[in-house]
């Protein structure tokens, strides 16, 4: 194994080179990735766990239905899904001939177990807030299940494609966190979240054997260290922040990708406090902003999609198209109407929690000043921000993408757990209820669009744009389209020799 040549440099450098070299010299096609240890070593392979190791569970397990990059649905382990006329029951037919990594057949009983497990109180899965409406699952025959809901939901397939809803073998819940038996394109070989996790290709994958032989995850907690490892050729794929881009630009060894995702920074104003109880004040706070300028300044032109306080991403089929140019006169007029002709003082909490968050609130402060809105910026410590500041004050917030129905119900419905702006409007809730029980998709779209327009008129959350995701890859990697992680066909990813 050791082939040391001392002719050039007699020091230990040559020695270390020779010893490190074997890991690069493998004939296998290995895609090397990093695990950022965001759950501090408690990463679990249970897809429903609050500390799931998502990058790995995405490769090991399959979903019933998968999302497509244009906001639609596509079959994965379920081939068809049909609701009854009240949208209270959904019948799914399953793909036949699919096997788990341990050789057992994937059948209806596994689906029943995997779905009913979501609402197991002992698990405390965050997915329960999304799919709590599943009351039971009936096995009709080995390849057919019926999902019974506690409330009608015409958009169930959009909830089922949640990245955490994965199929595991019937009864495997106690071991799944470490056994990692699924039906996915890669199989678990070794799992140690704090050092190295190895996945090998599943040669019997139902959609064709993967082209890669192996995918490995090395634990690197520090973002700068991950960047260094990528630059030094120790990783083949990594996410990227905007300020790291120049390191890779114009370097033929790397491919950069920039793709729309529905993630955003915003400001949640408390709609039940002081002057903010007046919807006119809330609207003034939002229309006084030049979103285009804000986006160019903070995200860079072409790195984000404008949105008019609408959390739903552009590619979502249920998204409302709203236009919202800066309107200083309009904002001043609204404030005067509401009884603030001399402008208004608003307290806003921000924090150095995520890169760019502080700058975001500062740019906002500058822009709305023109409309007589005086923002008193309070910088709260990052530690404990989500526990003590956010939700209790007018505060900076940050979200990851989800489908329209999930956005509107989880974050804006009256009394919802994550309703950070305390927005309460029975008419809005009624629209959501109606949309959920409407099987006619065109009609459902109208209802969701109406709800989003309502948010723009009187909502309390300011969202100027959704920033794109970024990744950097070794230029040897092929088969990864510029789309979010969720939409990659991992069995088609390959590496040039």
């Amino acid at each position: 194994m050791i082939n040391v040549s001392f002719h050039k440099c007699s020091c230990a450098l040559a020695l270390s080179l020779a010893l490190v070299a074997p890991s690069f010299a493998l004939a296998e096609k290995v895609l090397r990735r990093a695990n950022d240890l965001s759950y501090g070593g408690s990463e679990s392979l249970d897809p429903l766990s609050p500390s799931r190791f998502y990058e790995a569970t995405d490769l090991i397990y399959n979903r019933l239905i998968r999302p497509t990059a244009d906001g639609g649905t596509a079959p994965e382990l379920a081939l068809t899904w049909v609701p009854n006329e009240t949208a209270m029951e959904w019948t799914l037919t399953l793909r036949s001939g699919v096997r788990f990594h341990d050789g057992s057949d994937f059948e209806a009983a596994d689906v029943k177990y995997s779905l009913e497990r979501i609402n197991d109180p002992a698990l405390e899965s965050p997915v329960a807030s999304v799919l709590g409406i599943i009351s039971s699952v009936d096995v009709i025959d080995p390849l057919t299940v019926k999902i019974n809901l506690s409330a009608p939901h015409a958009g169930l397939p959009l909830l089922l494609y949640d990245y955490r809803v994965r199929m595991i073998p019937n009864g495997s819940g106690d071991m799944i966190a470490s056994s990692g038996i699924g039906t996915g394109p890669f199989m678990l070989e070794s799992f140690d979240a704090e050092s190295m996790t190895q996945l090998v290709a599943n040669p019997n994958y139902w959609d064709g054997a993967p082209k890669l032989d192996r995918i490995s995850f090395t634990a690197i907690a520090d973002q700068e260290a991950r960047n260094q490892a990528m630059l030094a050729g120790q990783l083949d794929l990594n996410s990227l922040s905007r300020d790291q881009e120049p390191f890779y630009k114009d370097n033929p060894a790397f491919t950069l990708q920039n793709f729309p995702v529905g993630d955003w920074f915003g400001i949640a104003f408390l709609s039940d406090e002081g002057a903010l109880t007046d919807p006119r004040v809330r609207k003034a706070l939002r229309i006084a902003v030049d979103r285009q300028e804000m986006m160019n300044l903070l995200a860079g032109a072409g790195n984000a999609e404008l949105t008019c306080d609408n959390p739903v991403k552009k590619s979502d089929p249920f998204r409302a198209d709203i236009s919202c140019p800066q309107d200083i006169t309009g904002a001043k007029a609204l404030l005067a109407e509401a009884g603030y002709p001399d402008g208004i003082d608003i307290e806003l909490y921000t924090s150095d929690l995520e890169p760019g968050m502080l700058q975001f609130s500062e740019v906002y402060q500058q822009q709305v000043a023109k409309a007589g809105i005086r923002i008193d910026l309070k910088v709260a410590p990052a530690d404990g921000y989500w526990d003590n500041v956010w939700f209790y004050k007018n505060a900076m917030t940050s979200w990851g993408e989800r489908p329209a129905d999930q956005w509107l119900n989880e974050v804006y419905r009256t009394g919802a757990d994550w309703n950070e702006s305390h927005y309460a409007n029975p008419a809005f809730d009624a629209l959501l209820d109606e949309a959920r029980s409407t099987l006619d998709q065109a009609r459902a779209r109208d209802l969701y669009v109406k709800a989003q327009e309502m948010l723009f008129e009187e909502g309390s959350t300011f969202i100027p744009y959704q920033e794109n995701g970024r990744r950097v890859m070794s230029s040897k990697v092929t088969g990864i389209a510029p789309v979010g992680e969720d939409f990659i066909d991992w069995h088609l990813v390959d590496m040039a020799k």
Partner: protein
Amino acid sequence: MLGMVAQRLGWAVFTMVIIALAVFLGLEAMPGDACTVHLGRGASDAALATCRARLNLSDPALYRFFTWAQHLLTEFDLGNSVQRGKPITEIVSWRLRNTIILAGTATALGVPLAIVLGVLTGIYRDSVLDVSVSAFSMFLMTIPEFISGTLLIFIFAIGLGWTSGIVTLSYKAPFWDMMVVSFLPAVTLSFILVAHIARMTRASMIEAMQSDFVLMARLKNVPRRQIIWRHALPNALLPTISVIGLTVAWLLGGVVIVESVFNYPGLGRLAVNAVSDQDLPLVQAIALLFGAIYTLVNLSADLLSITLNPKLRGQRQ
């Protein structure tokens, strides 16, 4: 002599008790407890109760301290990590080994180099060699490790491709593999080590060269080489030993930064992770361990000085 050693040992044990108590009380004084911190905002009452029962958090603080100390002393058991759900002894022992490898490599590289440089600059005081070496070591001393480490990676791993940049080995990797990857981080650490020790050695070398016994040796026409290596250096090294002790113990602080920069799987990186995961029992264990190493290194330096110094050796307490 024996009495003196016993006295030093006694002080070391006393220091350890104080450190343990201070760490424990510091964590106790924080708002919330290990479970509220670990489970965060969304924690249900049931989950909190289970977690508290698991960590015996309902017992009085002092009682918990004594049971913790008792487990530590009788079974060498540091308790369980909240976040990782594993025994801390198991988590910490591999990392401790890796940090010792790193600090050992840094010391082995740095100390001999520092002494040679210190002696040379001391003898050739105010020469071009002295001025340039002193200026350069001052320069190295002022560069923070996260900059020198990053620069070394850029030059040797990314630019020249001679070494691997970031450590991707498992914390359980074999001793020799760990040794090899510890080279670049050790060089980073030794920058500051070399500068400190070389400056100290230079100062005491200058002092020794001006002492009466060196003057006497010169008058007796003892060859210069012999004066330096046989008479001046051993005397100059004595004060240096305690500085080496302090600097090596001080390396521990540098280890935290260097290990994070290089992703080196040692105690320092574990400490950073434990703090950011708010894994309080683990933070407590690591703080105690750092305290123990610090005490131990200084104790050894003390004992070594006593053994080497005839004056101290002869003293009766």
